[in-house]
C-alpha cells in the first residue's frame, strides 16, 4: 500500500509529465504554424545587418518589418527588396524619415559652379556638404531650397533630418561664344567687360556711326548659330539689324538676353517676354550692398506675353522676365544702367554685378553636354525606398508575435526543469 506522501509524489510526477507533453505539443503547434502559416520578425536600423543575414540564412520568416531611423544604405535596401523573391514579405515603417531629393546641375558659366536644388518639406533644415565638410545650412521656406556652389564638387550631400540625399554632376558643359550687340554706351561697354572678366569669349558689334561705317567690331562675327554662339546679348534696338538671324538662333535652341529698350524694335519684340514701359530714373542714388539693384534706373517690362514668367519685380513693376521661344530661352531685363552698380556700388559690387549678369546669361545659354564619370549617387533615398519596398506601414502590434517570442524563450528552460524534476523524483523513489 502506497503512503499518502508517495501518492502525492506520483501525482506531481504525472503533473510534470503532462506539463512536458503540453510544452512539447505547444512547440509542435508553433513549429507547424511557422511551417505552414509563417512567422513574423522585426528589426530596426541598428540591427538590420544582422537581421538580414538571419532572415536570409537561418529563419526565412514569412514576413519582416523594419522600423527605420534612417533610409537603409543601398546594399541593405537592395537586400530587403530581394527578400520577397525568397518568400519573405518585407514591410517598413518610420516616424522620422523626411522625404527629400537633390538635383545637381552645372551652370553655363565659364567660372564654373553648380546649381543645387533640394526638395524637402517646408521648415525642414537642409545641410549641404561635400567631402570636405558643411557648405551651407538653410531652413526651407516652401517646397525646398536652392544653393549655388561656385566651385564644381564631384559629389554633394543634402542632409534633411536623418535622410541624406547624394547627388553628383553627370555632364560637362561645352560653352560657345557670346555675341553682344548695342550702341557705344556705358551699358554695352561694361556688359562686355563683365562677361569677359567672367571668362566668356565675346564677339561684339557696337554701333558708333549713323551709317555703321566705323562701327566697332570685336571678334569675327560669323553665322549666328548654336555651333558658334551660346547666347546673344541685345542691349538696344541696334541689335535689330540681326533680328532674323537672332530669331532663327533662338528657335534652334540659342539663348537671348535682351535689355527691355531693345524690345522696341519689331524684329526683337516678337521674341521678348514683354514690351518696354516708361523709364524710371535712378536719381543718382548709390547702389547699396543690401539691395543694389533698387538704386538702378529701370525701364519696366509691360504687356507681358501669356507665356512669360516673371523672375523679379520692384514693387508693382516687372524688372526681369523670361519665356521660351521654340527650343531657346529669352530673358529680358529692365535694368538699363547696371554699370552703375559695378562702378558706384560697395566693395563687393564689381564681383556681384559680374555674377548677376553671368547668371542671366547662364539661364539662357545654349550648351553642348558631354557625359562624365560620376560617383555613385542616391538622389532621393525615401522615394527610392518606397519605389523598391512599397509605402511604409505602421509599427506592428506589440501583442502579436513579440509576446509569443518572449513566451517561447521561457518554454525550453521550463521543459528541461520539468523533465529533470520528474526524472529525479522517480529515481529517488527507486523507480526506473
Amino acid at each position, binding site marked *: 500500500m502506497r503512503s499518502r506522501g508517495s501518492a502525492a509524489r506520483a501525482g506531481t510526477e504525472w503533473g510534470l509529465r503532462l506539463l512536458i507533453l503540453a510544452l512539447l505539443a505547444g512547440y509542435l503547434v508553433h513549429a507547424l504554424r511557422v511551417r505552414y502559416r509563417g512567422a513574423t520578425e522585426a528589426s530596426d536600423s541598428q540591427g538590420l545587418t544582422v537581421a538580414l543575414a538571419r532572415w536570409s540564412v537561418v529563419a526565412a520568416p514569412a514576413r519582416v518589418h523594419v522600423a527605420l531611423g534612417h533610409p537603409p544604405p543601398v546594399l541593405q535596401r537592395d537586400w530587403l527588396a530581394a527578400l520577397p523573391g525568397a518568400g519573405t514579405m518585407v514591410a517598413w515603417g518610420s516616424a522620422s524619415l523626411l522625404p527629400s531629393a537633390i538635383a545637381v546641375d552645372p551652370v553655363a558659366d565659364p567660372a564654373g559652379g553648380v546649381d543645387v536644388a533640394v526638395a524637402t518639406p517646408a521648415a525642414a533644415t537642409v545641410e549641404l556638404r561635400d567631402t570636405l565638410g558643411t557648405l551651407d545650412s538653410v531652413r526651407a521656406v516652401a517646397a525646398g531650397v536652392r544653393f549655388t556652389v561656385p566651385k564644381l564638387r564631384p559629389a554633394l550631400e543634402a542632409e534633411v533630418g536623418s535622410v541624406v540625399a547624394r547627388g553628383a554632376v553627370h555632364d560637362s558643359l561645352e560653352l560657345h561664344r557670346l555675341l553682344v550687340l548695342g*550702341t*557705344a*554706351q*556705358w*551699358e*554695352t*561697354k*561694361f556688359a*562686355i*567687360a563683365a562677361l*569677359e*572678366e567672367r571668362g566668356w569669349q565675346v564677339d*561684339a558689334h*557696337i*554701333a*558708333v*556711326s*549713323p551709317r555703321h561705317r*566705323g562701327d*566697332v567690331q*570685336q571678334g569675327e562675327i560669323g553665322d549666328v548659330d548654336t555651333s558658334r554662339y551660346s547666347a546673344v546679348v541685345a542691349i*538696344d534696338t541696334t541689335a535689330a539689324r540681326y533680328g532674323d538671324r537672332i530669331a532663327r538662333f533662338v528657335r534652334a535652341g540659342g539663348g537671348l538676353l535682351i535689355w527691355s*529698350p531693345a524690345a522696341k524694335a519689331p524684329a526683337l519684340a516678337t521674341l521678348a517676354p514683354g514690351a518696354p514701359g516708361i523709364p524710371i530714373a535712378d536719381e*543718382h542714388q*548709390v547702389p547699396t550692398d543690401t539691395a543694389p539693384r533698387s538704386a538702378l*534706373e529701370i525701364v519696366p517690362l509691360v504687356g507681358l506675353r501669356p507665356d512669360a514668367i516673371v523672375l523679379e519685380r520692384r514693387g508693382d513693376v516687372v524688372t526681369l522676365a523670361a519665356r521660351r521661344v521654340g527650343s531657346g530661352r529669352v530673358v529680358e531685363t529692365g535694368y*538699363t*544702367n547696371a*554699370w*552703375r552698380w*559695378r*562702378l*558706384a556700388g560697395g566693395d563687393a*559690387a*564689381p564681383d556681384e554685378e559680374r555674377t548677376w549678369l553671368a547668371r542671366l546669361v547662364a539661364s539662357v545659354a545654349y550648351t553642348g553636354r558631354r557625359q562624365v564619370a560620376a560617383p555613385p549617387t542616391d538622389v532621393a533615398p525615401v522615394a527610392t525606398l518606397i519605389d523598391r519596398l512599397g509605402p511604409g506601414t505602421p509599427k506592428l502590434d506589440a501583442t502579436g508575435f513579440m509576446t509569443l517570442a518572449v513566451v517561447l524563450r521561457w518554454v525550453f528552460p521550463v521543459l528541461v526543469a520539468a523533465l529533470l524534476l520528474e526524472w529525479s523524483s522517480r529515481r529517488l523513489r527507486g523507480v526506473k
Partner: protein
Amino acid sequence: MSQFVFATAEYVSGDWESAPALPENLIDSVARYTSIDVAPVGVNVKLSSPELFDYPFVWMTGHLPVRLTDAERRNVKRYVERGGFLMIDDHNHDITGQFHKTVTEEIERTFGKMTRLANTHELYRCFFVFENPPPNTHHELNGYGDDLLHRYLDAVLVNGRIGLLYSNKDYSSEWNFHAETKKFMTQDPTKFGVNLIVYALTR
C-alpha cells in the same frame, strides 16, 4: 540708357580748369562724327566725390603741381580698377614741368609704373585710323615746352583695358578752341579725342 557726359576732373591742388573750351569742342566732335548719344554740356566732377563714379570717362589736365589728397587718391584708384577711364594730359607739354613731375609721381604711387602703349594699339584705329600715332600737336611741332615729339602715350591697364591714359602731348592746348573754328581747318585735330571717347565707350 545713359547718355555720354563729358566730365572734367576737379582736384584740390593745381589749375584743373586750364582748358575751358576743350569739353565743348570734343562734345561737338563726338556729335559731329558719331551716333553716340552725347550730352550737349559737360560737367565738372571732384576727384574726391562719389559723383566721380557716375562718369566713366573723365578728363584731367593742368599746368601746376598736382598733389592728390588721400580721398582723391583712394577714389581714383577705385575708379580705374572698376573700369573708369581717366585721361590725364600735361598742359605744359614739358617733361621737366611741374605738372608732369608731380602727376606721374602720383600715378606711380597709386598704380605703380605705367605701361608704354604700343602704337599699334586699337586706341589709334577704333574709329579714325591714325597712321603715325599718337597724333602730334602744333605745340610739339613748334618746339614749345620741352621741344620734344613724344612718340608714345603711357597707360595703366586693367584686365587688358586702358584705365588711365597719360599724355605729354598737350592735347589740352591743341583742342582748347571754339568748336566753330573747325570749319576753317583743313584737318580737324580733335579726331583723336573722338577715338579716346569711342575707345572708352566700347572697350
